[in-house]
């Protein structure tokens, strides 16, 4: 097992970036994503997401780092941008978060 992982996808209705949470819901905040520490856990989380094709588009696993607060942080810059919204206009997610 390399790095801890989370499941992310785009919400079907508006394309918003979402993350699978502890209680099986979908949050718009990466910090609320549930973390898989083993490959087995990761597979199970992905399967849970894939079972909801009517709510989501393209769920996938992505590596995260774990911060001092125990919450996940993006491990790659692409995921960091997905988590916040475009850098040229302040009306993506960063406006709400």
């Amino acid at each position, binding site marked *: 097992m390399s790095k801890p992982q989370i499941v992310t996808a785009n919400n079907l209705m508006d394309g918003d970036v979402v993350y699978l949470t502890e209680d099986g819901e979908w949050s718009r905040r990466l910090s609320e994503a549930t973390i898989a520490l083993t490959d087995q856990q990761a597979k199970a989380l992905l399967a849970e997401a894939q079972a909801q094709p009517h709510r989501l588009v393209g769920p996938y696993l992505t590596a995260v780092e774990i911060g001092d607060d125990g919450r996940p942080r993006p491990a790659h810059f692409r995921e960091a941008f997905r988590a916040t919204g*475009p850098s040229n206009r302040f009306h993506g997610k960063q406006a709400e978060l």
Partner: protein
Amino acid sequence: MYAYTDFDQAFVRERVDAFRDQVARRINGSLTEDEFKPHRLMNGLYLQLHAYMLRVAIPYGTLDGRQMRQLAMIADRWDKGYGHFTTRQNIQFNWPKLADTPAMLDALADVEMHAIQTSGNCIRNVTSDHFAGAAADEIEDPRPTAELIRQWSTDHPEFLYLPRKFKIAVTGSPNDRAAAKAHDIGLRMVRDDIGAPGYEVLVGGGLGRTPMIARVVRAFLPKADLLPYLEAILHVYNLEGRRDNKYKARIKILAHETGIDELRTRIEAAFERIRGDFTAPDPATVARIQGSFAAPDFATDREIPTIADPALRSWVDTNVADHRRADHAMVTVSLKPIGGTPGDATSDQMRALAEIAETYAYDELRISHEQNVVLPHVHRADLPAVYAALREAGLHTANVGLVSDIIACPGMDYCALATARSIPIAQEISTAFEDIRRQRDIGELKIKISGCINACGHHHVGHIGILGLDRAGVETYQITLGGDATETAAIGERTGRGFSYEEIVPAVERLVDAYLEVREDETETFLETYRRVGMTPFKDALYGSEEEVGRAA
């Protein structure tokens, strides 16, 4: 302006109705994403990084005030109050909600616009010169040719499943402003010995992973032979183009592997076979198309005042070009404000442009592949009023063709395929060169930025090209120099190792300083200097005495 026939209108409405049904079935769960995706792509709907994106075609980049107002309305009602004009003469809305998209397509159909043929392995929307019908150097308006090709190619049974997408550009002037040599087929209008208009036919250009400049297959093609000749090219490509590898499927690879002479022989042979039986388009249709691009009723006998205001003069110097009539001018409205996003316009700005076009420009607007808006016919007497109105809308940036008139694709701020960001690089470069006097001293310099190898930002043909890559999880920018998108087209050459996000803007400044240092005088442009002195002084400026000079990034 090309007006829809009943057939065109019914066709577009049927497509919208079908799409409405598909969206409803996706939302209620009866279609999976895999089933739905081809339908949404056929209707111009993409899923990007943060949201859906609707890509709307602006055929030949031509639109009128009513259409521009409708785009503004769509931006306000279903998006976030702005749109993004692209290098393919499209407009993209970045934030539509899935359930709203059929209504958006309906609103487009109300003004004879659509999002069809913006994706798939078909003949894509034909692009042309944004100065079409107005330029002083024009032989003929290229748009009737482009529209004829559209009608011939739309739903042509032989060409619905080509090995790969196929792009055609037409330019009506010897000066190529449509980047014809960067297309699968480029048509450049020329005259033969006795002055009759026809086309120089170029084949095999394209950017992306394997950039190539198109080569001439026919130096002069009489106008009447256009469609059978295109059919011959497509026929050869359809039979011989590679279908085994997506990256080798474009006609440029066929041209490269077969050799241009052999390809020419095959095309000419196919042409000989086809031409005898080819049913020429109905002359009435041709006349109707020709008529729909007729020139406006130009105002005459108006006095043209001399321009005293220095700000206005400076804007006229950079943003106004010669019209084929001496008393008129072509105005390029820059969508590149200092620190702004290249190609973005707010709904208020779109409405201002519509108003200005209706009042001063015979209700005509164009979108250029350089992501600017053009008012193709403005009486010179109206230039001060046009400038004042643009100023009010924040659209008066006087930088067309200068270092801050940057092309940038959406990159990783929007695009799901991106490997790095491009917009903030453009914003920071234009801010670094904010001083307009410095920009004018530097002169013509085209910077083009892409956020991945797909090259939507045309970086290969930028005088300075910038390609954003992901190198081991870090945004890295590779520089090419000496690219050119015009009739003297060339693919830029790589300088060496890439630069980090923090390093890239200072690197561009060093390149510009090196140019100012080595140019012969202020009339020698960046590109001319590069062609004269080559890579060395620029490499020195970028890498200094670094040991790794020349090592690829």
